[in-house]
C-alpha cells in the first residue's frame, strides 16, 4: 500500500519490512514470518510490514456476511 519508489525493485506478492522511519527496505520475501525475523536481526523489531500489491488491485471490501 506504500507508494512505488521504495518498492520498485521488489517482485509483486512479496512481503516487505520497512524501517520504522519508512526510509528503507530492511527485508523482503514470500514468507512473512521470515521477513519479520530478518528485520529483527537487522535491528528493526518494529519494522512496518507492507508488500507489493498486484497492479491496480481493487481495494474496496464491502461485505463480510
Amino acid at each position, binding site marked *: *500500500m*506504500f*507508494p*512505488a519508489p521504495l518498492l520498485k525493485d521488489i517482485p509483486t506478492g512479496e*512481503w*516487505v519490512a520497512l524501517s*520504522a522511519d519508512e526510509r528503507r527496505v530492511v527485508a523482503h520475501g514470500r514468507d*512473512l*514470518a521470515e521477513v*519479520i525475523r530478518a528485520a529483527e536481526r537487522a535491528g528493526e523489531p*518494529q*519494522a*512496518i*510490514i*507492507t*508488500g*507489493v*500489491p*498486484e*497492479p*491496480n*488491485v*481493487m*481495494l*474496496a*471490501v*464491502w*461485505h*463480510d*456476511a
Partner: protein
Amino acid sequence: MPEQTFQYLEVKMAPNAAFPNGIVRYRPVLRTKIKYAGKTIPCVSLVDTGADACMFPLDFGLVLGAVSVAGAHNSLGTSAGGDDLPVYYREVTLEITGIGEWSVYAGFSATLNRIAGGILGQHGFFDHVRARFDLPNRQFHVEKS
C-alpha cells in the same frame, strides 16, 4: 486526545488499458499496529467507510498466532465481485498511531494478502472514532470518540 490530521497517500498507478498514461490515486491510510498474545505487527491500513469490519491479511493472523486455517470462518465479498475466500475472526488489539488503541473483533483473509495491508471499516474503527475527509485538500481528520 484532540483531532489528528493526516495526509492522503499519493499512489501512482501503472498504465493500463483504461488509463494508458497511468493515474494518480489518493488513499486515506493510517499507521496501525495489530497486537495479539504479546506479538505486534506494525502495518498500514486503508480507512474504508464502505467496509463492514476491520480486515487484515491472513498471513498477519497466522504469524501472530491469532488464527488457524482449520478454525471457524466466514466468507468475504468485495465490490470486485466477491472472492468467496474464508475470513477468520479473532479479538485482537488495534493501535492507531496518534489516536489510541482498543480491542477489535477483526477478520483475517488471504484476500487482504493481495493488498498487503489492513482495512479499517465500520465495526472496530468507525464505531470508535469520528472522521472527516477533505480530499480536495488531500487531508483527513480522525478523533477518538
